[in-house]
């Protein structure tokens, strides 16, 4: 979106023009919802929080300084809101470290071991997603955020730097560590399951 167009829409929206506001946010709705959904891991929460994000956007329209793209600003509010929400809940939630994977036959494990996708792989897309999601639950909030933004939502390094308000260098190292961490969790689960299988035999 051109800068000129955006700032005139913003002004109209500030003056109460709802359709201008809708035009501003329509393209970011899905991603904001996805950010919330992946961070909070619950559809209801994702809906509530993501809508709260847009309400915040609406209330703070006059604070948009036009330096970054409008969507970047929106995503920033989204990420911060989700992080705040997660910190709020951290005390209440019980994270089970020993959570077992839902499936014994892990498609991911197969890939790590065999490196050959089997026909089953394509049907197991959903299960892979579940495995990854449950592994992600064990990541720190920051790691979860950066993986969501980069690998799940496909945002660029520079966008992520703007959104999370850190330097590019920080984004790069944070992402590298997050991915490593996630991989270890997944592989660790595999070992955990393998152990279980051995015990059962």
């Amino acid at each position: 979106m051109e800068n000129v167009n955006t700032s005139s829409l913003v002004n109209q929206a500030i003056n109460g023009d709802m359709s201008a506001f809708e035009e501003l946010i329509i393209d970011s709705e899905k991603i904001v919802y996805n950010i919330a959904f992946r961070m909070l891991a619950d559809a209801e929460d994702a809906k509530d929080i993501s809508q709260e994000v847009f309400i915040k956007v609406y209330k703070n329209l006059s604070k948009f300084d036009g330096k970054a793209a409008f969507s970047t600003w929106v995503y920033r509010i989204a990420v911060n809101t989700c992080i705040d929400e997660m910190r709020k809940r951290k005390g209440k939630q019980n994270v089970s470290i020993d959570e077992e994977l839902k499936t014994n036959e892990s498609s991911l494990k197969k890939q790590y071991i065999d490196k050959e996708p089997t026909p089953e792989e394509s049907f197991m897309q959903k299960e892979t997603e579940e495995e990854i999601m449950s592994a992600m639950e064990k990541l720190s909030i920051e790691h979860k955020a950066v993986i969501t933004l980069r690998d799940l939502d496909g945002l660029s390094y520079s966008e992520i730097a703007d959104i999370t308000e850190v330097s590019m260098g920080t984004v790069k190292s944070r992402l590298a560590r997050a991915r490593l961490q996630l991989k270890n969790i997944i592989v660790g689960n595999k070992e955990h399951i393998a152990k279980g299988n051995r015990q059962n035999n």
Partner: protein
Amino acid sequence: MKCDKASELISLYIDKELNRQDEQLLMEHLSECDDCRNEYEQLKVMVEELNNIPLVELPNGYHSELILKIENTKVDNAENISYFKPKENNQNNNKKTNWKKYSAIAAALFILVVVGSGLGGNSKRGTKEQSADQKYSESAAPAAEDIDASPRDINVDGAAFDEASGESKEVSTISNKLNLSNSQNNERMKIKRLYAGLEVKDFDEAITKLKEITEANGGYVENYTSYVYNYDDTNGISLKQGDITLRMPKESYEASKNLLNEIGSITDENETTEDVTAEYIDTQGRLNMKLKEEERLLELIDKSNTIEDIIKIESRLGEVRADIESYTTSIQNWDRLVQFSTITLNIVEVTDSKITSIDSDFGSKIQNSFIYSINIMSMLGQNTVIALAGLFIPILIIAFIAFCAVNIKKKKKKDVKKNDK
């Protein structure tokens, strides 16, 4: 290259963010080091899987629900934070509560005035104004958009929460609106009110002319009643009289006054000019301070990190916004009263023969007393309104305190509810 260095670079390599040189070095290392190679393979697969996970679709009705919520926040914010109820939802309730309060205050004052001014005095057809239920304090004349010629009620809660000044608006918008208001430094804010009694030959014609003149000048009819007051059996004549309140732009006020002579003969008149400049500027000053405070609080919220801080700031922000709204309302009320002068006319249709006949028959006597009592009532009404106008500010303060008291209670109730949650 050592393995920890390689580890850092693998992630970047997967995203193709490495420069040629680093890429070269990494490839060399990977060809030599099995551990790192495995790590690379695993990460690569994982990232591919992550990338393959599709974006979740928005749930049904997400967008429309969102827009609804945003519309509601305009309303909700006013409800939660301000002491003035939004006109859309709660107007009816407010009308009733306001009426009760104001009728009580008005009744008390009315009695005072009645006792004070004494019942003797003029029986002449006094100038008639609206009775005490025209609230000059809290209510305003309806906003300019509502202009129409038909008789209508004055909104008790006439505060103009139009879209542009809704609660959720930011600081700059409100102050922009204020800058458009009348009182710049040079101009005095004067509220002009004219009460006049007019005798006319043809009542309906006079009313029509008045409406024409009013609308031609960009004004509007605020209130209008009429009734037949004398039915003369012998001649079959029925005479009408009535009251009409006009709001004229102050620029055309003088001109309209002169036009009255063409419509009928003025039996009496009374003009008042109320200078509210001092209060106006004072209120503007206070409003500016509150707006600045609002800005600062909003900045603070941005910087604060803990939820507790944010909650405290938001609470203070709520109070500040309540003040902002009340000041804005007062200013807007004054703007309207100044911008549109009020002309209240009591119009009486007369024939050539005098109404108050010298005829001493019983019927006429009754009529006379009836007219007499109407005049007394009108005079009392006039005194009341004058007294009210004079007590405008104290009434405003009393009413505002009453509002606060009631709404602090409500706020406490809501706080209790919130805490219970």
